[in-house]
């Protein structure tokens, strides 16, 4: 497709979905069809300010104020949006050392985050350290394979959440990485790790069969993939049916575009991850048909810089 036609068609599609009968083809996708926009980050790592101009990499990129502006624009374009994060909000700049994650949670609340999960760095100040700042987050933490026992942290973290967006029922669960060689035992005291594959299978069954969700999203902080036997987003996507989208983190992987894992039976799982430090904002648009089945997916990445197109 030529660029010119592409742009024109895009504009039509972008503006047209909400206009019903005026747009040819509306009868095909159905008047009751929906478009749900998923915006996502991972491993933001206390990057409140953009990277300094003197930084060897990603100079001038990122920063919460510009990400907020971008999110606001995208939300204005499609209110049927969710803003999700895949963990490791903590650690990475002196802002964490000084404000212990509280500032990040406050800013994420103002930006309208709908959920995040628990990354390994969320334990950097111990379970106590998380508990001290968790109430500054006005959004839920979702983690399904950590057993939080009797910790106060456990009273704040949800096994799953369900959101109704544009008439589509979306179930969201979360996965955390094994503590081995990552989190010192005294820092995750009282919290136990369970196998992500088993837990994911249970969560999907629960969300789809019992709660009747049309779409299932996994916020994962287990990593995109490994060369060894460690469980990863790839492994979960291949071994567990029924997850539409895995929003990944931990490995700081800049996927050029989301990856589609297709099963022989036609089941599809998208995996997306956008590096780290809020350098890039990810977007996927899920189009649903009249029966609230996924009819199509479009995706895009926005570099968070002064000029949107100065880095890709």
């Amino acid at each position, binding site marked *: 497709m030529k660029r010119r036609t592409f742009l024109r068609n895009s504009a039509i599609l972008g503006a047209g979905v909400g206009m019903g009968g005026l747009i040819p083809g509306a009868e095909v996708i159905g008047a009751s069809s929906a478009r749900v926009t998923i915006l996502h980050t991972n491993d933001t790592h206390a990057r409140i300010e953009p990277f300094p101009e003197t930084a060897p990499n990603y100079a001038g990129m990122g920063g919460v104020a510009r990400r907020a502006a971008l999110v606001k624009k995208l939300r204005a374009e499609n209110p049927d949006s969710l803003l999700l994060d895949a963990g490791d909000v903590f*650690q990475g700049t*002196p*802002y964490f050392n000084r404000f212990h994650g509280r500032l990040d949670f*406050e800013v994420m609340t103002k930006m309208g985050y709908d959920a995040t999960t628990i990354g390994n760095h969320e334990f950097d100040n111990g379970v106590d350290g998380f508990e001290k700042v968790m109430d500054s987050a006005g959004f839920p933490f979702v983690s399904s394979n950590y057993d939080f026992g009797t910790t106060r942290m456990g009273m704040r973290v949800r096994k799953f959440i369900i959101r109704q967006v544009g008439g589509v029922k979306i179930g969201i669960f979360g996965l955390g990485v094994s503590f081995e060689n990552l989190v010192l035992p005294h820092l995750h005291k009282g919290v136990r790790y369970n196998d992500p594959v088993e837990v994911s299978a249970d969560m999907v069954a629960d969300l789809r069969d019992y709660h009747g969700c049309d779409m299932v999203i996994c916020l994962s902080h287990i990593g995109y993939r490994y060369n060894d036997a460690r469980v990863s987003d790839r492994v979960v996507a291949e071994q567990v049916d029924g997850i539409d989208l895995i929003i990944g983190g931990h490995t700081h992987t800049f996927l050029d575009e989301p990856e*589609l894992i297709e099963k022989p039976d036609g089941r599809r799982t998208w995996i997306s991850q956008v590096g780290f430090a809020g350098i890039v904002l990810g977007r996927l648009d899920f189009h649903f048909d009249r029966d609230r089945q996924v009819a199509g997916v*479009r995706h895009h990445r926005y570099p968070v810089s002064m000029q949107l197109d100065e880095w890709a």
Partner: protein
Amino acid sequence: MTISLSPRLYLQNILPFLFAAIILASCGSTDQARLAPAADEDTHIYYDIDGEIEADEAISAYIQPYIRDMARTMNRVLTVSEGSFERDTPEGTLGNLAADIVRYRATAEMREKVHVSIMNNGGLRVPLPEGEVTVGNIYELMPFENHITVLEFTGEQLLRIADELAGVNGEAVSGIRFRITDGIARDVLVDSSTVDPDSRYWVATNNWMADGGGPSPTLWEPKQRRDLDVMIRDAIIEYISRKETISPYLDNRVRN
């Protein structure tokens, strides 16, 4: 339709069908992967977002006091340095300072003698400047949240560790002296004495080297291990902030 259409009419009539086809391709196709625009089409204009993003005013205003607070913290002057501290092998002024501080602090925390300390040169990220040294300088020097780990080894193991350090032409050390010849540590002295293979020695390092990082696998097999609740960056800040001035020093602790 058999009559021919003027170009204008043609467009008016055919475009809706084109769009319908495109929407079909977008939303009704069974091939979702194909829906992703090809690379050259994946422009930033696609979602009606134009070239510039200005910072969100409300968020900017909210974080301003924190940014100022952070600047105040980071600009705090800790001490004045009479020369720049540089990383070098087999011995460098920056490594000497960092390793001495870690051994000093580990001894104070353990309340017993810590004989040796070892820090990886790679973890010392930037030199320290001559003149005023700020908190920000120390964050740049040591951005990692590593803490002091104290490990116990036999003298025999300690000699092996010295050899492993010699293999990379030395790391930052304190409390131990040796000469590197052909990649092997010779004339190893700890506390001015030769090393007794059967005695036990405490070695302070960072948790990264203790947990599998760095050039010395013997560090991963200690007889005992204590993880101190002291960040290495904090130890450096606390130590130098008590000094009116600091000056770089070499004492041939590791030499070729």
